[in-house]
Structures are given as structure tokens and as C-alpha cells.
């Protein structure tokens, strides 16, 4: 069951199989079974090993920045002893390093036991595997060819004196994550991620406007095929034209107007005002000193009207190519699709096995860690808004005067995830049921608790995009996490919209 033996997906790159950093995952977990010292018989423990390989190619103003390659490897040992749980993480994976980590983790468990603990459980991992689907592996295109294509993309965004900056980049990551436990389970998963990014800035003496390729929203699992699926290579001239249009455009109007949001803004709206408030650790209060609490309380599940009857939200770890697909979370628990909101009614929170027991609520397998050096906490993973029936033209059709917005650029929401204000890169006025002139600095504000009830019409599968973000921040110590969101375009009634100064 070593990485080399996993048959699905693309061919692993040679450095993965034959690296001197790469004792097989299986062997490392087997070796660890002899590590717990005498007298630890009543402990339960887990060992989580993460190896991450990154390659980054970036071009700015047609100049290639140096290629970057990174290899990270480390382990987290978690021990439950005497009614408490502790962890120790180390980049020293030798026997002495792991033994030291075990002993420190056990000490932390005792500290917790003596002083009172919120969290006395250590779920044991199941057994199984997962591998990202890959059609064309990252390594099949030579490095120099990728750089050349990025330079061409950068060039396609230039050619006008008002273009002040332009950039294009590719960020590839492979994560091999595995967890074993004292009960004998072993979960082994290999993820390939690709994040294409492009941005162009236009400026004159009065204003500066930036247009991007969805920010970093076109983050996916998979290989080079992702770039064709999302039309990355051809985006340059469109982004340049739109940046220049924005420079000459009037500000977004102010008022209470119908609002149509493109998928690359919908995902931010879902993320901030549905995903975060449904995280069980926030509801339990763990995050109140940093990321915040939630306006959602445990009594709301099963009855609270979160949004209009058009609103259907699903945790779906099985969506092919979506950024946070997996078979098991980082506590080794099996992940399956779960309906969180159906026909507007709130059903379930997002929370892993430990939080579920603490709260006495059902959840989903979403205990996730940013890497080997941080413990799992409740996160979003793939959180999707189910498509409706309206094609894009009918989303606009009944709107006499409204605004359409694309691509998030500004996000802010209160610590209970209620009062929000979001800004987008690109707006269009909607007049007489059609897209009209471009408007700049399109922004809107509202309250989560009422905003989703104004969801009037949900776009069809033809308007849906599978997107995500590699940069969701949360937790103490802080963790950055990859989350996926698939969303159609949607229309909202009477939203407080406005523009810049």
C-alpha cells in the first residue's frame, strides 16, 4: 500500500518515488509501532505524516521570476493518556525524533488532564486510500515550456501605456498525507493541486483598476488538463480589456437593487456567510479569540430558515477535481456527502468526530489540518450550492434596473459571521433584463441572517463553476486551508449596493 503502489491517476514524478526523503509511507508507519515506550500500553495514539512538494512558476511584466521548488516533510504524534490529549510535531522523522515527539505529546496530555480539558477524545483512523484524478500529470510538460507559455500570457496583457503591471503564475502542489493509529488503522491519500493565476493592473492619473483570473478561485485538484478546462491560457486579452474598461467606467450606483452574482463571487458569499457560521468549533466557542464565533446556535439545526426555498447547500467530498475532495479527513474519518441546508432549512453543521461528540450534534468528516505541524480543527472542505433551473439570460430577464458583479476583491464580515461587506473587481449595470454598461468598484453589504432569504433565483448547472480557495485562514495556532466551492450564478432581491468615492 505504499505510494508507489497506488494505481489510479497520473504517473508519480521520479522524485516522489525515489527521493532519499522518501521511505515509503507504509514503512514509516510500521516503524512507528515500535516507538511507544514501555508503560504506554493504555495510551491511544495516532501518527500523521505529511510530505508536501510545491513548484511555483511566476512571470511578472514578461520577466520570469526564479522557479521555486519546495519539499516539506514532518510528522505529528498525538497521544491520549489519563483523560487528556496532547500532540507533538517534528520535522525529525528518525526513531529518536519520533520517540521524543511521543513522550512530549504524552506530557501535554497529562498537562491537559491535570488542569481540565475541553477535548479528551482521540478518534482512531479508519483504513483506506485516495488519489486525486489526474489526466495529464504536471511533470509531462517541460518546465521551460510552461515558463514560455506564462511569458506569452503576460505579453498578451500588455501593449497599452496604461497597463501598470501584469503577472501570470502556476502553483503546483502534491500532498501525501497519511495517518495511522494504535487501533491499527491506516489512511493514505495523495492530492495533486493546481492554482493558475493571472492579473493585470491598469492605471491613469486618477484611478487604478486590477482585473484577475478569478483571484485564486480556479484552484483545483488534477493535472495540466485543469488549465484547458478553465481556459487559462487564453484569458489575457479579456482581462486587459476589462481592466481598461474599468478605468473609464462610472462607479457602481448606490441603492437597494436586484443583484446578480457570478460564481467567482458566489463562492466567497457561501464561504463567509454559510461555511464559517456552520463550523462546529466556532459554535462551540473554540475560535472566539481569533476567527470568531457564530450567529448559529445548536438549537437552530433542523428548523432554522437560513435562506429562501431555493437554497440548497451540500458538503460534497466526492466532487471530481474540486479542491477539497478527499476520502478521509485528517483525523482519518470516512467522508461522505451530507446535506447541510435543504430548501432553505438548516440541517447540520460542519464538524469532525470530536466536535460532534462535544456538541451532541451530527456533522461531517471535516477535521482538517494545514500540514503536519498543526492539529486538525473543524474546517470547510467542498461546500457547494446546488444548481437550480435558470439559465444566465433568465437570471437577468426580469431585472429592470440592477447590478451584476464578478470576482471577489474585498471581504469583511463580523466575528459572528453576520454583518458583511464584499467588493468585486468587475460590475455591469443590468437594464431592461440585459447586461448594460461596465461599473467600477461594485460592492454590497448585508447580514447573513437575512441575505440568503432574498435569494430569488438560482442558476442552472450551465452557469455552475467548480472553484475554491487555497487560502482560508483560521485556528490558534493559525492554519491556512484549501477549500472547494462549486456554485452557479444567483440573483438576490433588493441588496444594498454601492461603489467607490
Amino acid at each position, binding site marked *: 500500500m505504499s505510494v508507489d503502489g497506488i494505481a489510479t491517476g497520473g504517473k508519480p514524478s521520479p522524485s516522489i518515488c525515489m527521493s532519499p526523503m522518501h521511505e515509503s509511507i507504509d514503512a514509516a508507519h510500521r516503524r512507528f509501532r515500535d516507538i511507544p515506550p514501555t508503560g504506554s500500553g493504555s495510551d491511544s495514539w495516532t501518527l500523521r505524516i505529511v510530505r508536501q512538494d510545491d513548484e511555483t512558476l511566476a512571470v511578472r511584466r514578461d520577466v520570469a521570476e*526564479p522557479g521555486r521548488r519546495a519539499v516539506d516533510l514532518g510528522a*505529528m504524534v498525538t497521544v491520549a493518556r489519563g483523560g487528556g490529549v496532547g500532540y507533538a510535531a517534528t520535522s525529525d522523522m528518525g526513531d529518536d525524533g519520533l520517540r521524543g515527539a511521543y513522550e512530549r505529546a504524552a506530557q501535554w496530555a497529562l498537562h491537559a488532564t491535570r488542569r481540565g480539558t475541553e477535548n479528551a477524545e482521540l478518534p482512531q483512523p479508519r483504513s483506506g486510500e485516495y488519489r486525486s484524478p489526474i489526466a495529464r500529470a504536471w511533470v509531462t510538460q517541460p518546465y521551460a515550456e510552461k515558463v514560455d507559455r506564462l511569458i506569452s500570457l503576460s505579453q498578451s496583457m500588455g501593449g497599452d501605456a496604461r497597463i501598470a503591471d501584469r503577472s501570470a503564475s502556476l502553483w503546483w502542489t502534491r500532498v501525501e498525507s497519511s495517518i495511522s493509529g494504535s487501533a491499527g488503522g491506516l489512511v493514505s491519500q495523495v492530492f495533486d493541486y493546481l492554482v493558475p493565476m493571472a492579473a493585470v493592473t491598469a492605471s491613469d492619473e486618477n484611478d487604478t483598476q486590477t482585473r484577475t483570473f478569478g483571484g485564486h478561485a480556479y484552484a483545483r485538484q488534477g493535472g495540466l488538463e485543469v488549465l484547458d478546462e478553465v481556459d487559462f491560457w487564453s484569458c489575457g486579452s479579456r482581462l486587459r480589456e476589462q481592466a481598461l474598461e474599468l478605468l473609464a467606467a462610472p462607479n457602481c450606483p448606490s441603492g437597494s437593487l436586484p443583484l446578480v452574482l457570478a460564481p467567482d463571487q458566489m463562492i466567497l458569499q457561501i464561504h463567509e456567510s454559510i461555511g464559517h457560521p456552520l463550523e462546529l468549533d466556532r459554535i462551540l466557542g473554540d475560535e472566539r479569540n481569533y476567527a470568531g464565533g457564530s450567529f448559529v446556535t445548536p438549537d437552530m439545526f433542523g428548523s432554522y430558515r437560513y435562506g429562501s426555498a431555493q437554497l440548497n447547500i451540500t458538503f460534497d467530498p466526492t466532487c471530481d477535481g474540486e479542491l477539497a475532495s478527499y476520502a478521509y479527513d485528517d483525523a482519518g474519518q470516512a467522508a461522505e456527502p451530507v446535506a447541510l441546508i435543504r430548501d432553505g432549512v438548516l440541517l447540520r453543521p460542519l464538524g469532525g468526530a470530536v466536535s460532534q461528540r462535544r456538541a451532541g450534534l451530527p456533522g461531517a468528516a471535516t477535521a482538517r489540518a494545514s500540514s503536519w505541524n498543526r492539529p486538525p480543527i473543524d474546517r470547510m472542505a467542498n461546500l457547494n450550492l446546488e444548481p437550480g433551473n435558470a439559465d444566465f439570460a433568465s437570471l437577468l430577464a426580469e431585472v429592470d434596473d440592477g447590478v451584476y458583479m464578478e470576482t471577489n476583491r474585498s471581504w469583511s464580515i463580523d466575528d459572528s459571521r453576520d*454583518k458583511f461587506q464584499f467588493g468585486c473587481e468587475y460590475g455591469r449595470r443590468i437594464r431592461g433584463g440585459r447586461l448594460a454598461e461596465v461599473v467600477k468598484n461594485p460592492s454590497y*453589504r448585508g447580514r447573513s441572517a437575512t441575505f440568503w432569504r432574498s435569494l430569488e433565483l438560482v442558476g442552472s448547472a450551465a452557469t455552475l463553476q467548480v472553484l475554491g480557495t487555497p487560502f482560508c485562514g483560521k485556528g490558534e495556532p493559525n492554519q491556512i486551508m484549501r477549500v472547494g466551492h462549486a456554485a452557479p450564478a444567483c440573483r438576490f432581491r433588493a441588496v444594498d449596493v454601492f461603489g467607490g*468615492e
Partner: protein
Amino acid sequence: MSTDSHDYFFSLAAAMPELLSGDEVFTCHLRAEDSSFVRFNRGRINQAGDVRQLQLDVDLIRGRRHAVGQVALSGDRSTDWPRLQELMGDLRQLAAASPEDPFLTYNTDVAASGEHRRACSLPSAGEALDSVHDGPSVGDLVGVYAAGGIQRGFASSLGQRNWHDSRSYNFDWSLFDERGRAVKASYAGFEWSSATMRERLAASMEDLRVLAQPARVLQPGKYRVFLAPAALHELLSLLSWGGFGLRGRMTRVSPLMRLHDGTAELATAVELTDEIAAGAAPRFEASGFPRPERVPLISAGHAASCLVSPRSALEYGVETNGAGDDEAPVAVDLAPGTLDADTIARELHRGLIVSNLWYLNFSDRVACRTTGMTRFATLWVEDGRVCGPVDPMRFDDSVYRVLGDRLVGLTRQREWIMDPSSYDWRSTRTARLPGALVDDFALTL
């Protein structure tokens, strides 16, 4: 681990020239950290553990071509050496396949070598935890205790050697009452005292009592506010995101573009400096360039110097001042004013004391208009007296107004803030800031 990682790093660096071929050059930068993290919720321990990590960044250079690598180190030579050999091979291939880099630069002045160690005294885990749990019940305390060693090293095949070593703690917490209102506090530094920790904890329990008064509901509008140093820190952290770097200025995406252009100004009381020598960040950046003691950023309300990374320096033909790639300040320092923080309610007369701001972002970057939330203790003041808490409110206002014509004044007392953030690694950023009294601050939701 700190002495160990010092000797280990420099022994690796001394051997690494063996891995070079021909006229290759390398620079390398070490990050090492040995941190304890204890989370609390409801006064009880939530997650407790520690993290030991070592990471080496290597820039392998041949002529105008290069590639940058990063590798986790175990601290054991027999494990790490093959990793380095493999990395250097990979980088050699990558560099050969790369176009020439017109902005390639690294420090060639070996005289920039130096070592900096701060005298530090940290508690044992038990001692730190006892200061929370041995006294009167702390009630609903939530937050994190983070402590331990942070090292950074630089070495190049030209012979330059730099070392930065400090051990610090940062206990960052909030206390909640039964109605969900909270005060936030922290105890951070290099010389731990359990007595001081207990005093801080007792003070925040006292502060929480003020929030027991009935809450006042505010309508959106313009209010006179006192932004406490922690609140001002959030605003300046947002500005640091592209506001003070040369690249942001030259590509015209800086939120302070109008200040750079000279078409807008801030109040003359605004004297903002990156006081690097007074902070806790290393005095060298990742390609070996030294950082000066200080870089003036805003002087008498006008733009002063920019932070210039080595790459920007070549791109725009100026000298670097050792800024990192993000060209953000590491030790923000705002000069004090003349207001007395102890009598600020009287000075405010009618308005809000804002202890913290939260989740800031730009609502109109060119106009430097920012939005965000009040968080934790926000207090309504009437006739110079604190009357009770205010629920979280959204603001949306331009820094050109808040720190410009609507700035009434800054306090003469300042607070020292150590950034508690710990994404991948514990932050070494610091700030030293007064509070600010501001008229007509726009609350919108």
C-alpha cells in the same frame, strides 16, 4: 535547540560548497522554531502540544540564471545531506531551463555578517499554565499560549554568515461573560513573569465587569471615537499590505497612492517609521541584505521612504533597504501625541471607545477607504463617562480622513504589540502605537 540549530546550520553551510559545480554560487536562509501551543476554551485546555521545525531555503545561482528551493531539515546530518544533494541537483536543472533573470541579486558584501541573540527567560509549560489555573477561576477564557525559540540564519558561498535568535512568549486571550460580551488582552515578551501574567488576567476580569451594563444600540452614522492602540494596529496592518512598498507604488496599486503622488496628505502628527532595530525581526533578509535600524515611512503626514526588496531595487534602479518580498514593515512605530490615555473618556466626551477592530479590508483602495468591524469591548461614552457596551458595528471610512483632517490627536502613552499570528511560523512582527481620537468616524451597518 537554539544552540544546536546554530551550530548545525553553520556546519551544513560550511560543507555545502562541496555541492556546487563550476562557478555556481549559493545563498541559503534557515528558519527554525521550537514552539509550544496551548489553546483554551471556557478556561479549560482545548488542544495542547508543541512543534519543532527546521527549513532551509537555497538560491542556486549560475551567472544570470538561478532557482530557489526549500527543504525541510530533520536536524540529523545523515538524513539531511542526501536531501540537500537532491535539492541542489533539482535546482541546477531548473536554473538551466530558466531564462536569464535581469533582477537576480544577492548580497556580496560579506561584511554584513553578524549575530544577534536576545536575552530571554521563558517559563516551563507547567509554570505558564499554573498562572492561569492556580488562582481564582478565570471563567470563560478562550485563546492561545504560544512560546518558544525562533531562529533565522543566513549563509552564502561567498562567506557571509548571519544569525538571529530569540525566545519569546505570546499569551493572547479574551474573557467572555454569560451574554457573550468579551474583553481581549495579551501578555507577550521575552522575560516571563508569572506575577505579571496574573495581574494582566485580573485586570481583564475587572475590565469585563464594565460590559455588564445594558448595551446601547447605535444607528449607522458618524461618531467621535477613540481607537485604542490595538484597534489602530489593525488599520496600520491593512495599510502595510502594499501601502509602503516600492513595488506597490510603482505599479500604482498602493492604497497610499495619493499620498505617494502628493495629491493627499495625512495629519502632520502622523510620523510612521519601520523601527527595525527596536523590533523582534531579524536584521537581515532572505538573500543576505542587511536591514537598516529604521526606515521612515510617513513624515509629518507626507510619504517618506518606501520599503524596497532586493528584487524591486534592481527592477526600479534604486538601493534596497533589506525589505522582504512583501515589502511590508516589520516593526511599525507611530510617534506619540499629547493626549492623556488615562483621561480619554473625558476628552472623548460623547462617542465610542473602540478597543479592537477586526477583519479589515479595502472598500475603495485608491481612496484608501477601508471597512471592518468593531470587536470585543466597544464602549459608549456620554458626558465623559463610560455608560456601557455597544454591539459590533461596521465602519467604512478613508484613512485620509481618519488619520487626516478628522484626527483630533494621538495619546502620549503607547503600547508595545507583538503580532500573535502563527501561519506556518510564529510571526516576528511588532508594533509600538499610541491611541487615536477621531471625529466623524463613519459607521455603516
